[in-house]
């Protein structure tokens, strides 16, 4: 299964070589290609940096402090992930465009036109707002399981709170920041919805133009290969920051949770800042969808929301999530327990599909599907397979993060006591990494729900989903008809994620309560819910 994730790369090599080496080199070295590469890399770097800058303080505020409304913010701050970039990007254009809804509201005050949000600033803003939760989730999970005694030691030795954060806390968060940042960076490279709606000329957009103009597949494929090269650079950068450190505890007994930091006078400003972020990333898109819904219903537009649509979306996404997690298990075990050249190769290969634009992956599977396995072509089987190729790294990361926190000596003990490998996995490992498995399921489910290009190209004929229905209506500018499916899509895909985040926060809080009474005596080495530790 992991090997299957390189199919898109194989396809790109086949297609690009149609053109001959000379043409390929010409495409690669063209000034425009280099410029695009630079712009795209710049976007990926700035979106990642901004996501980290947003997510780390947000994680700290929602885990460690007495922020007003903390429990609500814990959930709300993770949910922008459920908004597809083609909906979010559209909402931002509709709301903040030069003559958008906001300008309309301000018109009585004499505001004729808002400054343009198009180009780099808009693409940067939208991508940051809808992908920072990747970092937030990984960092929050890491923050929950930090051993506060290190921080206390630092304070005892005379360092201030701030210095302790920079010198002690932040270095420990580095792997989780890198893991979340990796998902953000690769997502930025592959995204088409936001860059096209906000008119930023990125690499994916160039690939789409190659298809749109005269269906130039060789040039598009060559550009795709350049994108893969860029991905390898990103992966190498992440690997450097990962290092060779053990993250599990050496002794039994969980770490005590850290005491709550009192924000004092900073409480309300911090809450306002969090509310502003949630307002931008969550309320703006929902407001615009609601506006179109009301307007559409008032104009008597048909509400295109049926049980079949919802059923198709849920079924394909749930299957995708389950199969992805099953396929991710061996990759994660290999990577966490047997680090080495082979496991690194397998893990990196699994990123190919994730970082390529969805349409490239989809066309590669059209190619292999129709030619090699016509029996499953245009069946849900192949669609689910496509989801796995696209989103495997999310599941691998979540499970791997959980596995790394389990002390391997537990498995060894189980084997020594006579349990077989399979029985050990079932009785010892699985229960301990359940949080990671659930996190992987929720994340892949959410991402499959909003996936568009592969669904359009690979689903069985007539297998409409919420995402394809939104696309169908918006492509003819019937925004009112797209609103109900869009709302359903966001709510349904957010649901498992919200449940998971609430559960995770509950556990943290409960520990805090027991801890203040007695010393912690929870079950030995129960890893804290690592949620999305996507140490890809």
């Amino acid at each position, binding site marked *: 299964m992991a090997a299957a994730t390189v199919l898109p790369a194989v396809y790109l090599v086949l297609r690009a070589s149609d053109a001959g080496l000379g043409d390929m080199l010409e495409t690669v070295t063209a000034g425009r290609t280099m410029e695009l590469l630079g712009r795209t890399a710049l976007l990926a770097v700035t979106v990642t940096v901004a996501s980290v800058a947003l997510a780390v303080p947000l994680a700290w505020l929602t885990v460690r402090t007495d922020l007003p409304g903390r429990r609500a913010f814990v959930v709300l701050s993770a949910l922008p992930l459920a908004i597809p970039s083609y909906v979010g990007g559209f909402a931002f254009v509709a709301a903040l465009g030069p003559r958008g809804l906001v300008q309309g509201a301000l018109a009585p005050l004499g505001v004729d036109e808002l400054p343009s949000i198009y180009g780099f600033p808009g693409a940067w803003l939208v991508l940051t707002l809808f992908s920072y939760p990747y970092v937030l989730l990984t960092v929050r999970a890491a923050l929950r399981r930090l051993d506060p005694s290190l921080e206390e030691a630092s304070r005892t030795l005379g360092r201030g709170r701030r210095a302790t954060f920079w010198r002690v806390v932040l270095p420990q968060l580095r792997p989780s920041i890198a893991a979340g940042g990796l998902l953000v960076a690769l997502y930025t490279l592959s995204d088409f919805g936001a860059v096209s709606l906000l008119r930023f*000329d990125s690499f994916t957009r160039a690939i789409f133009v190659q298809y749109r103009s005269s269906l130039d*597949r060789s040039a598009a494929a060559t550009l795709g290969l350049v994108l893969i090269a860029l991905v390898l650079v990103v992966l190498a950068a992440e690997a450097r920051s990962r290092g060779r450190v053990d993250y599990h505890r050496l002794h039994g007994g969980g770490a005590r949770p850290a005491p709550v930091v009192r924000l004092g006078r900073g409480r309300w400003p911090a809450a306002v800042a969090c509310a502003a972020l949630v307002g931008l990333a969550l309320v703006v898109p929902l407001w615009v969808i609601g506006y179109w819904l009301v307007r559409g219903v008032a104009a008597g537009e048909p509400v295109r929301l049926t049980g079949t649509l919802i059923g198709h979306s849920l079924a394909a996404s749930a299957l995708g999530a389950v199969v992805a997690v099953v396929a991710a298990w061996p990759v994660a075990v290999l990577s966490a327990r047997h680090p080495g050249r082979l496991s690194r190769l397998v893990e990196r290969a699994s990123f190919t599909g994730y970082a390529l634009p969805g349409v490239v992956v989809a066309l590669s599977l059209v190619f292999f599907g*129709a030619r090699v396995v016509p029996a499953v*072509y*245009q069946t849900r089987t192949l669609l689910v397979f496509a989801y796995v190729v696209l989103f495997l790294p999310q599941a691998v990361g979540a499970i791997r993060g959980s596995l790394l926190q389990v002390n391997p000596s537990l498995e060894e003990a189980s084997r020594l006591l006579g349990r077989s490998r399979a029985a050990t996995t079932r009785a010892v490992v699985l229960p301990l990494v359940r949080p990671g498995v659930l996190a992987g399921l929720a994340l892949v489910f959410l991402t499959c729900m909003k996936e568009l290009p592969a669904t359009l190209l690979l689903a069985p004929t007539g297998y409409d989903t919420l995402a394809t229905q939104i696309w169908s209506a918006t492509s003819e500018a019937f925004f009112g008809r797209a609103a109900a499916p869009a709302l359903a899509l966001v709510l349904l895909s957010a649901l498992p994620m919200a*449940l998971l985040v*609430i559960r995770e926060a509950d556990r943290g809080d409960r520990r805090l309560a027991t801890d203040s009474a007695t010393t912690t005596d929870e079950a030995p080495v129960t890893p804290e819910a690592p949620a999305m530790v996507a140490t890809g």
Partner: protein
Amino acid sequence: MTRRSSIACLLLSITLLAAACGDGGEEAAQVEPATGSLTVYSGRSEELVRPLIEQFESESGIDVQVRYGDTAQMAGAILEEGDNSPADVYYGQDAGALGALSEEGRLQTLDQAVLDRVDAQFRSIDGQWVGVSGRARVAVYNTSALSEDDLPESILDFTDPRWGGGKIGWAPTNGSFQAFVTALRVSEGEDGARTWLEGIKANEPKVYDSNVPIVDAAGAGEIQVGFVNHYYLYRARAENPDFPAANHIFPNGDLGSLVNVAGVGIVDTAPHDEEAQRFVDFLLSEPAQQYFAAETFEIPLVDGVEPAADLPPLESLQQPDINLNELADLQGTLDLMTEVGLI
């Protein structure tokens, strides 16, 4: 751990549900080439096409499976599927994708009798695809601010400073507008096209994302005139009969009123040739042509079918001397527009 189990239960039940009702999807895909079925790959959206498909199904008794998608991506899918393509008919939004399929040898030559129903300028030179409905570029104008006489005979004249200061609205990122710019490059040369784009830009036009908001803005008097496809006005009028805007058609074969088409071709490997031909016939039949006129407000391409009231009849749209087959170089157009600083 009720929450934990609730998540697990939720996912499990969804999966079981999926597995239980799963066969529906699989079956839909594996419709064998039985007689009386047809697979259409449509680059046109379901919103526009579905009623037409239903009409064909009930008239012919043929079961039609339609895959909807993006015009270029659906064509790309046929190319990648190779000989195993289940597609019988490709129905595309513009001439470019049809031309690309034909160039790769993936379309059959159509019957001359079918081709002859449509004027030569709206079909492929080698008879591999045929246009079924047309859309004209026009200038939509606010009828309180302007009258028909105020508007120039050529779109090239909008570079005049008299149109300066935000009177014009346009959508440089829109595909139809870009096709027009490609035509401009073919007809006036790169320099001519650049001069026009820069001239309009100097008049400080208002920039929109697509045709719909331009038509709204013209109605609201936010702009006096905008460059759009003709049919959006009719949608606005359907909502509000007193909508204060009208379409200006540029006379004498001016580029400003270029007509582009949506068209069909039969795939070379079509498993159901005969049904495919019947479908193409149907699209060029009177009922289908009337559907385009009345429901999508497009221009019927077959002689003798009148457009809906106050739509321009095809004869009145004297076509510029541009062949639709020549409009493939989108990359060149985007490069030029980037250079001028429009996109």
